[in-house]
């Protein structure tokens, strides 16, 4: 007779909330009347994300110290909980952003998949053995593949979906083989057990570790595993891009740090250096490649690559301060990237064409509020004052220096210096006179009254600026969360 294991429902509650939302939305999409599907699904999924966030907060509160669940299938700790909060926030904002996208078919499914992807990430950040890691990864990846390709009438959307699917499966195949090797070396799947196996320099283990790092680096879109990023970000529906740019990074980076610290403490001397090098490459590639971009989504994609570099610096620090820095950085970063993509979406809808440096002209004068918000977001990505971006960089560099990586600090500084150039091009482009040829056409409806998007932008704005003034509370949260990893 099988004694069914005791399941900690609270630990799973955020995931379940999102799954439930997905299910309801899906049902609505199938059975509800047409006019009713979209609104209902959107509302349910938004509510699902909010609930998940609240539950995650509750979880954070109730989890003073980490507990492995179900024979280390997953871990209930504050690290995962805080990440879940950020993810839920990102998801909720993306829902608001996506509302304005006039999608006549599959609207319900769209939101269902969004919720499903969110659920996958929320689960993923808590995963703590190689199997759940792989499954969680595939869970949200597959959802994202579909979302990217959802606008089947747009060739770019299809192209993005196909590229993401193939390259992504390739990456996860490598991750999988790596996991297999690690399993072979240790005979264990759970992170803690792998570390407990106490195998220090086993070539199987190391090869597996290398492949796992690569697989996770792929999801975090760190160079040289980044090349799918610009294409996919550009081709995917903008709201999906917004969600991916924030959430995927959060999930991937948070779990990367967890795997590396929990499962491979003995190999620290290897993976810190590897991560550091990857970070530098990402900084260089992301920033330099962005210099010549004219398509804003593409430019922001490259900038997200460079930001992955920044956050990997925090990972490479491999210290409690590093974890703190990573979690802090993720909060304003998510807000800024979602916000900026939201603004791009708004512009795109009123022009009916992809947004480039040229047709961003005069945006600040036509849409002062959105333009000003875009300003703040870009300044934040630059790491300028009055945005959390500055404090985030500050923490990351501090962590790097504290761990003795002074050359990472230098690299980060240089990267930032380069990045200013292209951000500034966008900033100044918004000030230039509007080109009469680019009067808002009645494509997405001109100008679309989209209060939800605007409110999303303002929420992101609030986080971006608030995280600058109220560092202490955020840092306290981050400290508690980072405390649950073994540094």
């Amino acid at each position, binding site marked *: 007779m099988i004694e069914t294991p005791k399941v900690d429902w609270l630990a799973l509650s955020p995931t379940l909330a999102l799954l439930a939302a997905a299910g309801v939305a899906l049902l609505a999409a199938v059975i509800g009347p047409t006019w009713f599907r979209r609104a209902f699904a959107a509302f349910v999924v938004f509510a699902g994300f909010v609930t998940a966030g609240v539950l995650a907060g509750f979880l954070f509160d109730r989890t003073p110290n980490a507990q492995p669940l179900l024979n280390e299938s997953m871990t209930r700790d504050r690290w995962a909980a805080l990440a879940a909060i950020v993810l839920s926030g990102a998801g909720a904002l993306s829902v608001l952003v996506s509302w304005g996208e006039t999608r006549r078919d599959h609207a319900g499914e769209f939101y269902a998949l969004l919720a499903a992807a969110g659920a996958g990430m929320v689960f993923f950040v808590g995963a703590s053995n*190689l*199997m759940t890691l*792989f*499954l969680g990864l*595939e869970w949200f990846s*597959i959802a994202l*593949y*579909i979302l990217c*390709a959802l606008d*089947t*009438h747009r*060739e*770019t959307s*299809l*192209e*993005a*979906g*196909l*590229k993401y*699917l*193939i390259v992504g*499966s*390739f990456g996860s*195949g490598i991750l*999988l*083989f790596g*996991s*297999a*090797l690690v*399993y*072979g070396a240790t*005979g*264990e*799947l759970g992170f803690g057990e792998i570390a407990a196996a106490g195998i220090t320099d086993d070539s199987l283990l190391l090869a597996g570790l290398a492949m796992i790092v690569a697989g996770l680096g792929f999801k975090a879109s760190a160079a040289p595993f980044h090349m799918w990023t*610009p*294409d996919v970000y*550009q*081709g995917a529906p903008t709201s999906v891009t917004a969600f991916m740019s924030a959430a995927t990074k959060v999930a991937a980076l948070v779990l990367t740090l967890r795997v590396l610290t929990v499962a491979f403490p003995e190999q620290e001397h290897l993976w810190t250096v590897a991560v550091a090098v990857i970070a530098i490459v990402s900084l260089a590639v992301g920033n330099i490649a962005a210099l*010549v*971009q004219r398509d804003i989504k*593409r430019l922001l994609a490259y900038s997200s690559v460079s930001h992955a570099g920044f956050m990997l610096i925090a990972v490479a620090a491999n210290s409690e301060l590093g974890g703190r820095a990573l979690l802090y950085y993720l909060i304003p970063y998510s807000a800024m990237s979602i916000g900026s993509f939201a603004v791009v979406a708004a512009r795109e809808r009123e022009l009916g064409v992809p947004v480039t440096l040229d047709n961003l002209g005069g945006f600040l004068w036509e849409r002062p509020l959105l333009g000003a918000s875009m300003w703040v977001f870009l300044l934040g990505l630059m790491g300028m004052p009055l945005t959390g971006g500055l404090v985030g960089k500050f923490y990351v560099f501090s962590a790097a220096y504290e761990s003795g990586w002074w050359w990472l600090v230098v690299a980060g500084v240089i990267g930032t210096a380069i990045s200013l150039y292209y951000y500034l091009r966008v900033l100044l482009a918004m000030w230039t006179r509007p080109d009469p040829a680019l009067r808002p056409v009645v494509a997405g409806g001109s100008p679309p009254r989209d209060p939800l998007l605007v409110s999303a932008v303002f929420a992101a704005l609030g986080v971006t600026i608030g995280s600058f003034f109220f560092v202490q509370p955020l840092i306290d949260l981050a400290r508690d969360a980072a405390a649950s990893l073994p540094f």
Partner: protein
Amino acid sequence: MQGPDVTWYLVVSALLFSIGTLGVLLRRSPLIVLLSLEIMLNSANLALISFSRLHGDHDGQIFALAVMAVAASEVVVGLGLIVAVSRRKLVLDVDRFRVLRG
């Protein structure tokens, strides 16, 4: 156990893995690329199973089963995509998908 020991299983899986890789890297038909991906996943499965045999615990086999499911899902989505693509009367050739670049 009878027959060759685990090492040889692993060699085979390694060979399969690189064959799959080659397929992904070389072939231009998305269908065949998908098939090659399947081969990669299966090579991993082989490794998992032989390791689980080696250590004598079931985790590897469980993992393998899960991977099977995942592989199936990937195939489903992939085929759906391919169908959608062909619906748009686009040539089924991954090298033709380069509107997005630079």
